[in-house]
């Protein structure tokens, strides 16, 4: 077996496959993470509603929302994304949605990409809801009392005091979701989303060069996750207002950037 030869054929003739795959995977992970974060914030609000003992008119709209959000979180976190993707694909097909006709011709968006973006976003939303909820619970009660003593109302407290702190404290976990998404977007190949795994597989099958092609993919995934880790550490570093210089190399060896 001539692995070196396989490499040169794959990269030489099918390099564009990998580039296309990288672009798709990055797009999926970023849209999934940020879209999931935005929706997850609302999911967390829904789950944190406390309709018990309130006026009937308030209970009437709060209960359904709370039950929906909790069910959503349990179901989406309790089933594999691969299965969700397939259910989404055939379910929407039965409803007559033609995903392969949406945004065709736009680079990277060809084929099932739009469906893939929706699936990964909806899936990430469930996890982000959980993360934001934990973040909100972790904000010191005194912060709320301080705001209340100034006369701020619940919404003002949420948007100016508790939510910013919840998000700030959750950045490591949110970033982790991004890294998970870079890797887990590979399962979307089951609905033919042309991401890195799918494209690598396509390149391999052109001449039975599976080992070499998957080795290339593995290295690309590793590179992507390392870069993502570095970016996240840099964000944390900037937010903490450190005076010393940020060195990317430190990310690989000193995973802690927070001072003790």
């Amino acid at each position, binding site marked *: 077996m001539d692995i070196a030869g396989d490499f040169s054929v794959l990269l030489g003739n099918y390099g564009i496959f990998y580039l296309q795959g990288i672009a798709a995977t990055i797009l999926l992970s970023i849209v999934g993470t940020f879209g999931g974060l935005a929706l997850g914030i609302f999911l967390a609000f829904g789950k944190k509603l406390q309709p018990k003992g309130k006026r009937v008119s308030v209970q009437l709209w709060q209960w359904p929302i709370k039950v929906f959000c909790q069910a959503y979180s349990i179901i989406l976190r309790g089933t594999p994304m691969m299965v969700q993707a397939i259910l989404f694909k055939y379910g929407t097909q039965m409803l007559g949605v033609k995903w392969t006709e949406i945004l065709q011709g736009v680079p990277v968006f060809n084929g099932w990409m739009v469906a893939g973006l929706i699936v990964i976003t909806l899936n990430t939303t469930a996890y982000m809801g959980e993360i934001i909820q934990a973040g909100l619970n972790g904000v010191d009660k005194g912060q709320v*009392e301080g*705001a209340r003593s*100034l006369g701020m109302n619940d919404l003002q407290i949420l948007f100016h005091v508790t939510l910013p702190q919840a998000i700030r404290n959750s950045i490591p976990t949110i970033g982790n979701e991004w890294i998970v998404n870079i890797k887990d977007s590979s399962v979307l190949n089951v609905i033919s989303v042309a991401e890195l795994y799918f494209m690598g597989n396509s390149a391999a099958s052109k001449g039975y060069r599976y080992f070499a092609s998957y080795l290339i993919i593995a290295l690309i995934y590793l590179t992507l996750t390392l870069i993502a880790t570095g970016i996240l550490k840099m964000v944390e570093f900037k937010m903490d207002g450190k005076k010393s210089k940020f060195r990317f190399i430190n990310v690989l060896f000193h995973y802690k950037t927070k001072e003790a």
Partner: protein
Amino acid sequence: MSLLEIKHVAKNFDDTVVLKDISLNVEKGECVTIIGSSGSGKSTLLRCINLLEQPTSGEIVFDGVNILNKGVDLNHVRSRLSMVFQSFNLFNNMDVLSNCVIGQVKVLKRNKKEAIEIAERNLEKVGLKDRMHFKIRDISGGQKQRVAIARALCMNPDIILFDEPTSALDPEMVNEVLKVMKELAANKTTMIVVTHEMDFAKDVSDRVIFMDQGVIVADGSPDYIFNQCENERLQSFLTRRHRSPVERIKEQPNLFHSVTLGD
């Protein structure tokens, strides 16, 4: 009519009675300190005044309105009764200046420029104008409490409530906070101060209230409370505080047993 009239206020937490039938008037410009041992209900009383705790019964009449009535704009009342907490409760996600600005902009609807000017003036008053762009975690405990006082002042409150403002501070930082509070009292700011600082109660306040087990036991001028009042519970509270730690340990026979055996 007094600025604040507390009438027969009681507060229970489930089965625990914390406040029993508290009545108290506070006049404009008065500096009232509330003293008493831990668990006497003094903090709860303060928290009831700006409704961080809902009293179980009674009336709190502030500026002629019973604020426990339904339909009273709670947030408006709270903005007129600023509170300074033992644990500061400054917003960790903002710098010093923003802490002082946010309430003015969001609650009092002042425009941002005006709010910043007022914040700067009040930060200057507490001696922290040079720290206004610092993050909260980068300033000391005493500075945090002074920022909290400035934040309260920015709301132009009718009354400032202090809930043990120096109890969480290192001894060397207590004075810088007390100094600011003394200045406020000298300027006839209406203040209600729950404190363990007896010197502050003695020297600065116009009136001292002693609470024990959820009731007001004694109420009067500092001179009356510290020199004349012969109430047994007050006397025991005051003498207990004046004894040294060693003496207090000696009171507990079991704790000291092993040492006294050697005598």
